[in-house]
């Protein structure tokens, strides 16, 4: 059901871990739905110089977290904010429809960590406009039984 790329990132996830005294930390998802992503950023001169994640979730949650960290590493904050869930999913050669919410979660995790950084440093970013870290990113599970 998963692409080889997803399985590869699931089995060998990049950037797992935490960053002590991170410049920005964001957590999204909730255990009720079975996915929580926590992302840590180290930011220097507007550049993401390090990123780590921890994820509680299914195979695609782990793979999208891993892929998202790879895609924003070394990027500017504005570049990172422009990362879409579609781009993460595409980079993984696609996700099954019922798992697309994992890529949404990954996008939100990145934004959430940058939001934390912005708050702490009193900064404003265009890419954060309308972003509410407390919004329930809860996806409605596609009901598999009827």
């Amino acid at each position: 059901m998963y692409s080889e790329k997803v399985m590869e990132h699931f089995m060998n996830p990049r950037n797992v871990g935490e960053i002590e005294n991170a410049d920005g930390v964001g957590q999204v998802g909730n255990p009720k739905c079975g996915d929580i992503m926590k992302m840590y950023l180290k930011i220097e001169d507007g550049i993401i110089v390090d990123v780590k994640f921890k994820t509680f979730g299914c195979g695609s949650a782990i793979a999208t977290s891993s892929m998202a960290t790879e895609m924003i590493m070394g990027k500017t904050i504005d570049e990172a904010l422009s990362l879409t869930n579609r781009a993460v999913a595409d980079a993984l050669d696609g996700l099954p429809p019922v798992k697309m919410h994992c890529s949404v979660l990954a996008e939100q995790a990145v934004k959430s960590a940058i939001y934390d950084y912005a708050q702490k440093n009193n900064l404003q970013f265009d890419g954060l406009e309308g972003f509410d870290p407390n919004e329930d990113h809860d996806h409605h599970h596609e009901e598999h039984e009827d």
Partner: protein
Amino acid sequence: MKKRVYLDYSATTPMKQEVLNAMLPHFNVQFGNPSSIHCFGRENKAVIDQARQIIAKTINASADEVFFTGGGSESDNWAIKGVVSALKGKGKHIITSKIEHHAVLHTCEFLEKEGFEVTFVDVDEFGIVDLNQLQRSIRPDTILITIMYANNEIGTIQPIKEIGELAKKHNITFHVDAVQAYGNVRIDVQELKIDLLSLSAHKVYGPKGIGLLYIKKGTKIIQLIHGGAQEKRRRAGTENVPAIVGFGKAAELAYQDLEGHVKHLTFLRDKLINGLLEKIPYSRLNGHPTKRLPGNANISIEYIEGEALLLSLDMVGIACSSGSACTSGSLDPSHVLMAIGLSHEVAHGSLRFTIGDFTSEEDVDYVLKELPIIVERLRQMSPLYEKVKGGN
């Protein structure tokens, strides 16, 4: 070839060689339609009657009380819809439990939309139906009680005899989904006062696509599938001769040494359960410690999500499930695990290993070796785990 360890016998079983051998001639040699008068038909009529007798005997029913269907789900649908349609003049209330298989649960939910009223009785922390609540929920217009014999996810075996007596006392039709219990428990429909019983062959080393509904003589029930005169005019459709023959053989094998089967499975199951609980911190057994199916080991592993466990096990060749097979594509935590009181996150992190006749001690040892490694790896990635271990 990669090592493959199958521990998902509750999802489906491989057919036994004897079963396949019994079926083979009926595909293209002795293939006639049992309803035909000519010899191609007659010889198969005898053959399905024989299978019917073998299976009837294993549940202490008479052969003219058992009707072949296309599987366990059809049997459940037929039993429930058929009885409430037949008795709708008498009442509109159905009693079932919160942990039934979806074939029962979704059928009851459908009937709610059609105007019936359903009470979903709670279970305790071990998954045993609350008998007091069940008794209290009986109403003058209750027309059906449907409770499963053993649960497909956590393996808990229900007090069927007590429920049967309650149903009898109040003159309520009693249906039992015994799809998982069959072949693992001795079932006596008369002693247990069961009016309808669902079975499915592919859970007991028989073929897929064949099930059975026991209908006690005199039970009022409407047909689900109308048409030809097969199955004494109660279930239309050309008889699935090879599958019926295979079901008969599987039934015979299942009850020829039930004690040996139970002993073998129980030994391996307990070794697996005890080994996992010992080696994996923050893990717990789901279901009842003793009133459970001999092959079922369902454990929750905290701080990890079940699908990630499943995939990781699959990568080392171990096949199991998280929740029931038909819901393993679902994202919602299992309704059974929620009903026994697990929190969402713990329910998400549960695994069901089901052991069968072809499982060896080596298979169990392999799981005991691999799973702790996988758990540790995934926990290291989990943001929930860091809190527990103090962020290491």
